């Protein structure tokens, strides 16, 4: 199926409902395996950091949460563009589905960062580049959440949150750069896919597994929330009724 027909078909909620079943199971299994392997590997087998000792193991939870949270927001921005340009209702379903997990993961990144900061920086909270940009990300999420709560009408809520998601996404790089410039007490970004990671292989490999694991989990979670929302919105259509008359 060419991308063109895929794109066209994505418009029909029914088609999405059918194909998403397979993807959800696939993501679910992958996430289960990857997260299990990653945690065991990171917790038990990875060597301790020579400075921080074992507390660095929080990184295997902290970094994936932060990265996936950011990609979820960017995903909402893309969905916003899709909604405005192609008027696709599914995009709004996607925004609504990414929101709760995005907020949760950002909060998790903040919490795990704080817990990690206690032994290494000595305080629960440290105003620095990473912490601020994550806090801003949390507020960007809460902004969209509060806006969606304030509007009842489905179509208006879709266009309003799409607009905020787009404007927010345009600003993320600016916020990131301004925060980075401002002062970076935070550990330099040690994991670039391009240059050799500062950490030895047996340290960043489990991190890679964990990151993939959390991405799969996010895929599973978001797609299943979308399925529920699609069913709720199409509850009066024939194909949904047919599905549920046993």
């Amino acid at each position: 199926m060419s991308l063109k027909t895929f794109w066209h078909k994505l418009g029909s909620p029914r088609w999405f409902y059918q194909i998403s079943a397979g993807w959800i199971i696939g993501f679910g299994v992958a996430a289960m395996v990857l997260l299990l392997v990653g945690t065991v590997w990171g917790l038990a087998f990875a060597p301790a950091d020579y400075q921080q000792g074992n507390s660095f193991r929080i990184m295997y939870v902290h970094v994936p949460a932060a990265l996936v949270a950011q990609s979820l927001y960017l995903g909402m921005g893309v969905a916003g563009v899709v909604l405005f340009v192609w008027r696709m209702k599914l995009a709004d379903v996607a925004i609504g589905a990414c929101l709760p997990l995005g907020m949760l993961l950002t909060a998790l990144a903040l919490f795990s960062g704080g817990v990690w900061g206690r032994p290494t920086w000595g305080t629960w909270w440290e105003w620095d580049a990473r912490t601020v940009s994550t806090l801003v990300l949390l507020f960007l999420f809460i902004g969209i959440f509060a806006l969606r709560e304030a509007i009842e009408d489905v179509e208006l809520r879709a266009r309003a949150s799409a607009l905020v998601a787009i404007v927010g996404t345009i600003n993320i790089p600016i916020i990131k750069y301004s925060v980075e410039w401002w002062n970076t007490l935070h550990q330099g970004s040690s994991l670039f896919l391009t240059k050799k990671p500062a950490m030895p292989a047996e340290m960043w490999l489990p991190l890679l597994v964990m990151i993939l694991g959390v991405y799969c989990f996010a895929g599973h979670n978001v797609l299943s929330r979308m399925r529920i929302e699609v069913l709720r919105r199409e509850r009066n259509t024939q194909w949904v009724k047919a599905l549920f008359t046993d």
Partner: protein
Amino acid sequence: MIKLSQLSCRRGEFKLFAPLDLTVAAGQYIELTGPNGAGKTTLLRTLAGIYQQYDGAFEVEDFLFQGHRIGLDGLLNPLENLTWHAALAGTVVQDEQLREALRRVDMLNYALTPVQAMSQGQQRRIAMARWLLGDARVWLLDEPVTALDSAAQTLLLEMLQSHCAADGIVVCATHTPLDLPGKQSLQLSAVTQ
């Protein structure tokens, strides 16, 4: 010229009235009637391009819209409001034309009073003066009779008659029928929620 094909407006996923098919030729007066909540205001705001939740299609030439709200900036006086509206519609008006319009609605001696310091009927008259200034062929009016005294009501009828006579179109939602020649009534039936 106005053309509606299978046009129906939605509030959320709730349809307000059965789809409409209508073609309005120049010089005609369409009277929109129906109980409260039938969807007259929603239809007029859809035709004016303000409200976008509708199904079907419609075409409207250059139009002017007068809603339940006055549409004037309370802080500015009538002259400034009328100039601003002309700029909005992209036409340029001389001071003389403004004074003539205000004289026609008998509000000349309020020309410099901020609109918020006027009675309901006086504000409505300034809105009527605004219609005279634009050269829009289609007038979309939502209950224009509100708060007008008897003199203003007769003036309203004259203005609508001369507009239709000059090949203009008037689509007007109203609860008190206006007897204009060539009147065609469009009844919107209320849908229980």
